[in-house]
């Protein structure tokens, strides 16, 4: 008999399986698609072009896991990329130079005040990031149950908090309920700079820059690092699928099995214990434990029978906030696009483009989402991975990843259709072409993904990239539900290991690793999951 079944070969499911297999358990990972990776995939949809067609950048991947699972040996290289240009509503451009002096002078050009304030902003963000980073590879304490382990974890947190000093503790708590706009108001006066700094606060979330809670989302997006450089983002050589493939390599190295085209129809429960699964093709598999890498809503409403769940869980799952809000347009280009107002400087014209406009533009885009429409002037975050990675496009040609905030999961005027999807794609191209006049002529192929496509293909409910909103009510020991923040689910022998669990969305491998630690504890196996090394912070 199998020791463990992991449902879903996304990067967290694979990480979980790798650690279970490494501990000597007999593990199988079941994936509904004919490829692995979930939302961390590389797909050649047009000859010669390999899209990271869902997630497209990486900064949260924990070094400790990368190192411990030997992911470099399994072919993974994360390359930091530099140089983002923020495009204002009109001709204004804000270039993020890598060099401190150049970056300062660029900010000063827009606002001497903000150029000075940036130092305090960065120091504060780094301090908050350092604190939260310490919780990533740890299981949250349960403040209601207060078993010895919960108490020691709470003490650990208290100690970390206290080390920041009294004033910062108050500031930090404010962070979780503030909006990105309120947070930034304390530092900056220039609207272009504010909008540029605010965009990490809305990516992937159904909140606006003025919505309470978006300040935390901002922090969630900047707390990652590449080789210790907090806030830096990296590209996986070969696309995001290289991350999943490397972790899959670790699964196989330790004797784990990965089955594709093996969707799970139902989790089997007997005597309130998970005993196995039924596959879409009717096959039954039994195992000592079942681990779901699906989001909380999908797990409890799609592959579990309501009768197998304790009272209230189905309702919690139904009410789980997992609102789709993002779209993705992947475009193959015959040449590197040129943007007006951006110097022909290879260190800045081939990094990222953030069409962030102004605070008002960002908020108006959110207003459209609320009304079940997409904005004619959406926020688009673009990056050209092929300018960094020679393996994902033919030499001299490129592919551009465009992430769009916002895109509604359901439209006010009826369901998504291919025709509406293409109109959404056209809106995105039109916006980019406003800043890059020759852009449309370069397009060789494009793939447009609304929340509808993301849900259908990846299985993320409503296409929510975080497997559930990252708001305080759904964070830390409240993730996915209060009382279930420690990866064990309401049915015995059933666990969750996806981004619906602490610490939430992002290609970090932490959810899967943390869940493995809890599982190994329950199965009385020695822990093989590393902890972050705090000396390194």
């Amino acid at each position, binding site marked *: 008999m199998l020791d463990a079944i992991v449902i879903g070969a996304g990067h967290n499911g694979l990480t979980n399986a790798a650690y279970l297999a490494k501990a000597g358990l007999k593990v199988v990972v079941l994936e509904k698609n004919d490829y692995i990776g979930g939302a961390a995939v590389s797909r050649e949809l047009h000859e010669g072009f390999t899209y990271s067609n869902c997630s497209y950048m990486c900064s949260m991947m924990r070094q400790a896991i990368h190192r411990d699972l030997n992911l470099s040996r399994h072919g993974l*290289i*994360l390359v*930091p990329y530099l140089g983002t240009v923020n495009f204002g509503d009109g001709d204004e451009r804000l270039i993020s130079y890598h060099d401190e002096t150049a970056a300062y002078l660029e900010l000063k050009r827009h606002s001497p005040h903000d150029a000075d304030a940036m130092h305090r902003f960065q120091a504060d963000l780094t301090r908050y990031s350092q604190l939260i980073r310490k919780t990533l590879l740890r299981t949250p304490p349960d403040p209601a149950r207060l078993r010895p382990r919960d108490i020691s974890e709470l003490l650990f947190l208290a100690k970390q908090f206290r080390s920041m000093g009294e004033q910062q503790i108050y500031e930090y708590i404010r962070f979780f309920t503030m909006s990105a706009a309120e947070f930034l108001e304390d530092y900056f006066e220039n609207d272009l700079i504010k909008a540029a700094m605010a965009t990490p606060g809305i990516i992937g979330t159904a909140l606006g820059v003025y919505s309470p809670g978006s300040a935390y989302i901002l922090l969630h997006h900047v707390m990652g690092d590449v080789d210790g450089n907090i806030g830096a983002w990296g590209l996986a*050589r070969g696309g995001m699928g290289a991350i999943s493939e490397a972790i899959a390599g670790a699964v196989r190295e330790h004797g784990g099995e990965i089955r594709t085209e093996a969707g799970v129809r139902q989790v089997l429960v007997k005597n309130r214990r998970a005993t196995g699964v039924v596959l879409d093709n009717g096959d039954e598999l039994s195992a000592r434990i079942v681990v779901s890498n699906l989001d909380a809503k999908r797990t409890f409403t799609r592959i579990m029978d309501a009768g197998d769940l304790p009272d209230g869980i189905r309702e919690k799952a139904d009410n789980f906030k997992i609102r789709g809000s993002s779209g993705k347009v992947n475009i193959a280009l015959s040449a590197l696009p040129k943007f007006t107002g951006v110097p022909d400087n290879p*260190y800045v014209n081939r990094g990222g483009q953030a069409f962030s406009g102004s605070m008002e533009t960002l908020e108006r885009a959110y207003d459209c989402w609320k009304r079940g429409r997409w904005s004619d002037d959406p926020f688009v975050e673009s990056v050209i991975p092929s300018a960094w990675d*020679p393996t994902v496009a033919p030499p001299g040609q490129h592919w551009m990843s465009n992430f769009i905030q916002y895109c509604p999961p359901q439209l006010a005027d009826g369901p998504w259709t291919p025709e509406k999807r293409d109109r959404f794609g056209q809106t995105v191209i039109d916006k980019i072409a406003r800043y890059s006049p020759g852009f449309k002529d370069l397009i060789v192929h494009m793939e447009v993904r609304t929340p509808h496509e993301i849900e259908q293909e990846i299985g993320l409910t409503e296409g929510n990239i975080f497997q559930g909103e990252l708001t305080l009510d759904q964070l830390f020991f409240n993730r996915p539900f209060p009382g279930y923040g420690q990866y064990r689910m309401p049915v015995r022998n059933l666990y969750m290991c996806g981004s619906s669990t602490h610490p939430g969305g992002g290609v970090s491998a932490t959810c899967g690793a943390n869940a493995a630690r809890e599982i190994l504890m329950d199965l009385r196996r020695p822990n093989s999951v590393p902890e972050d090394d705090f000396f390194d912070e």
Partner: protein
Amino acid sequence: MTLDTTLDPLAGERPKPSPFHPRLEALNVREAWSAWNGYKFAEYYYDVEYEYFCVRNRVATYDISPMQKYEIKGPDAEAMLNRMVTRDVAKIGLNRVGYTLWCTDEGRLIDDGTIFRLGADRFMLTCGSPCGAWLAKSVFGFDDITITDQSDELAALAVQGPTSCAVLKGMGLADVETARPFDIRHFDFRGASLMVSRTGFTGDLGYELWVSPEHALELWDALYDAGEAYGIQPYGEAATNMARLEAGFIMPAMEFNEALKTVRFEHDQTPFELSLDWLVDFRKPHFSGRCALAKEKREGPKYRLTRLDIEGNRPAEGSHIYRNRRCTKQIGYVTSAMWSPAVKANIALAMIEPRFLNGAMWAEIYYEEELRHYNRVARCTSRNKPFWTPARARATPAPDF
């Protein structure tokens, strides 16, 4: 040669420009210059880590013109070199390159370098520091030989990284992909002779291009035209140092102190201490240092250069290595250390007393955070393979990326 200081009284203080300097100068946006063998030489151009990743992920160039290059020719050339260096030069075939060492009579390392066999009795010796005086001594007893210092007559550029071969092909160097590691190929480059060796100091796929200085800029432009689509970028000494450490290559003034410049007794090193046993060939007749090295081989070296994987991510620069966590019994010292972004490991090269190699090893690491100094003791694990050994570095034909 006299130096004209009438126009520039400080001329005597200034390093001289390399043949590639006009291009290097334009690209060195950080003005980060140092010097090597009298030439102005970049520490980095834009950002050390950026350049490092160009080497590991794309393609990048390194100006190695300041390297010392000696043409050694004549019927006695092979015999003379064979008496000077530790490996068997007779085994280096035509149009092949061999990495080698040369030692004092006491078996202490003078320098390392490469020997290019360009004919039955014509060689090129390259090395990091000038060794003309030692060559002059080594010629003793050989009459039919001429040695010419070509250092200023040959511009050289390393082209390294996974797409280096694709770029050279794009530049029109036909069949360059069929060159094996350490092969030499000769091309006609717009009427000039261009020598290409599949060599380098990065441990990755890479080549070194050799051309006369008057063609240097033309070569640069052709290379950069072909490399444009690949994001070609110059890299400096700092990125080189990162790449070579991952590859496990030794560096003067880091792993070894050149014997002829060493003041204190045995503060220089031997090939065995540097774990370069494979470069010492006792099957050939006498060579400088042979007796001393034979004795050392019998009795065992005092140190072994060892690759360490160290917990945490604080580089163990300048650390002592101890047998115990309490750091009371020192067994060695770190020569080079870094966090390796490609391998995701805290790596180091260290000299360790051989009898302690199989036991526990601890590094005492000092670091600084916002003007406060800290230390920690970290466990070290020895590694028997280089940290970075991609298959493409050995593959023939060389891949496109």
